[in-house]
């Protein structure tokens, strides 16, 4: 008999006969989900994100490439990783190339195995999109894919995340249920709530433990929301 059969045999022999109480997860979240309008949700998202050292930049659908370029010029990144095959990646590339001293652009166009050392040592910042956000905890939902693989939001010291703020859920439950995640998940899916951090040395918080030291969120705010009011709401 295999270990599998022995373990399952022991568990089956002991499994309780009565049907267990079914937890009412949906009911709990129906009672505990806030119903804030987007500006309030967004203000809370930014408050939570900024509390863990994330930089949130409010921008617009037509002007975010300029905001990205300005931030890049300020930081002086020399090597930026992005996905030129995507619409947002192409716009970002165009804006960055328009800088006085443009960074060298790299794309994740081959398997990690072929350029591991370069990815680890010669990329200053990576630019990716995000799937959605979660207001309650200040969280980005990222589903890496062939264009923007998993390591892009992990290995480079700076991660710039483009976030369509109209896709901001109140909480994790709302995201999972609205998007029907239970019907199938990709190879890897992520919740990211700030830059990498640790408090393993004498409970002293330090950022950039293994992953990005900086997380910069370029939040595309719908035009009907006033940016100054949004900043003031925080």
């Amino acid at each position: 008999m295999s270990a599998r059969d022995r373990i399952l045999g022991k568990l089956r022999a002991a499994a309780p006969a009565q049907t267990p109480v079914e937890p009412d997860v949906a009911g709990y979240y129906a009672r505990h989900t806030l119903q804030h309008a987007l500006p309030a949700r967004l203000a809370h998202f930014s408050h939570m994100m900024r509390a863990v050292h994330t930089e949130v930049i409010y921008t617009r659908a037509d002007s975010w490439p300029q905001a990205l370029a300005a931030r890049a010029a300020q930081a002086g990144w020399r090597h930026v990783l992005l996905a030129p095959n995507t619409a947002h990646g192409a716009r970002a590339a165009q804006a960055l190339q328009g800088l006085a001293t443009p960074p060298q652009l790299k794309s994740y166009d081959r398997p990690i195995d072929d350029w591991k050392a370069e990815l680890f040592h010669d990329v200053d910042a990576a630019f990716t999109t995000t799937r959605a956000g979660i207001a309650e905890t200040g969280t980005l939902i990222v589903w890496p894919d062939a264009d923007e693989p998993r390591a892009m939001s992990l290995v480079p010291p700076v991660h710039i995340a483009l976030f369509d703020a109209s896709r901001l859920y109140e909480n994790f439950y709302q995201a999972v249920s609205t998007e029907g995640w239970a019907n199938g998940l990709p190879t890897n899916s992520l919740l990211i709530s700030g830059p990498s951090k640790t408090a393993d040395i004498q409970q002293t918080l330090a950022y950039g433990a293994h992953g990005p030291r900086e997380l910069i969120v370029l939040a595309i705010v719908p035009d009907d929301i006033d940016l100054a009011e949004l900043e003031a709401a925080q």
Partner: protein
Amino acid sequence: MSTHPITVHPARSFKANSHDAVNDPHLRKSFRGAMDFLMAKRAAQFPDHNELEALRSLGETVRQRCLAKLPQLLEKLEAQLTANGVKVHWAETPEEANAIIHGLIAARNGKLAVKGKSMVSEETELNHYLEAHGVQAVESDMGEYIVQLAGEKPSHIIMPAIHKTKAQIATLFHDNIPAAPYTEDVDELIQLGRNALRGMYLKADVGISGVNFAVAETGTLCLVENEGNGRMCTTVPDMHIAITGIEKVVEKLSDVIPLYSILPRSATGQAITTYFNMISRPRQPGEKDGPREVHLVLLDNGRSQAYADEQLRKTLQCIRCGACMNHCPVYSRIGGHAYGTVYPGPIGKIISPHMLGLNDTQDLPTASSLCGACGEVCPVRIPIPEMLMRLREEAARDPEEKVPHPLAGQGAAYSPQLARVWSLWRTVYSRPALYRAFSWLATRLRVFTPRRQLGWTVHRTPLTPAKQSLHELVRQRQSSR
């Protein structure tokens, strides 16, 4: 190749260890400070008491439903993961788990493994096993890395290096990381560790991790972390081996949501961790990173013993947040190492007897004042004090007594002498005439009361009966009215 197992019984030295620990003022100070910090941070995360209690109840119901269906859910998890391309392995013992993992690494001639945090791999002493078989296993969680460099074991399940000071870590890094200067600056220390470990991710043949929740519905392994080392270990090397206990399976993806909501808040007082990493498949054609091979090792190691008993099954509800130890007056005074077990503190006292047997762990359930703090903060409402009392009972039970679900080491603390005393007392106490005669004699012959009264006088002054029994005093009082 075979290695002789070295049999050690560190938990047997619990009393001596704890005596040493309470007399170490530095250790007392660092644990007191850390526990106060963690308790305050947790409290700040739950300003709404009603929300906390509702979420705890939900977490408890979710875990109990998953445990009630455990065998079916494990089969479903296996089927779903297999369909996703993840290979599932089963191990009854730590030795089996280690052999499986080593076999997988050896099959691709691997020499270096990077490890994310996994308490289950501490259970199996995987690092030691792999080293003995020519595979270097490097811990990548900062706390675990520090503890590994120091040749020690974690003293807390969430903050493994909580017992170490900055100065000790500065010396460790200076001595062990090539070209590392001596610095006590925490940011600089973390950068030294970061750079050293980044070199390891680049070279590693395999990444090993634990699992926080394994979702049967979708075949997904969920990992909770702040540092990103777990993501590194499960993204950069070409093979990922996850190891977890059989109790970690949950039925639905939505089950994870309340559990993940309460876990970081209870553990470290964070609203959420930096990363929640959901892994459902190995690298697919066209994808450019992630491991091409993903394996899950499911370990029993005594969990099925706890499962067999309806009351003790609740032990398996645990989501490993560590809140019970943070709030434990015993843990905060003696620290994690004194227990001599992988899991210290209240949860360790109730889970270790199933993993190691009561012969090695009989003292652990007694190391509690039954103050109840652990049960009050437990995010899934494990009645830890009840479990402690039950385990005390099982340790003191006659080893020959037949019970439906005997525990390994039943009767480890059994004393025939003590059993006779209680049996005698039962006889006396249940017969009024005998009881009256006994109390008359005990009060009149009080000067002859033995000075040594078994366990009672180990830490207390002897009991001496009053001059008259309570019954007599009450009778006198009533007749004098």
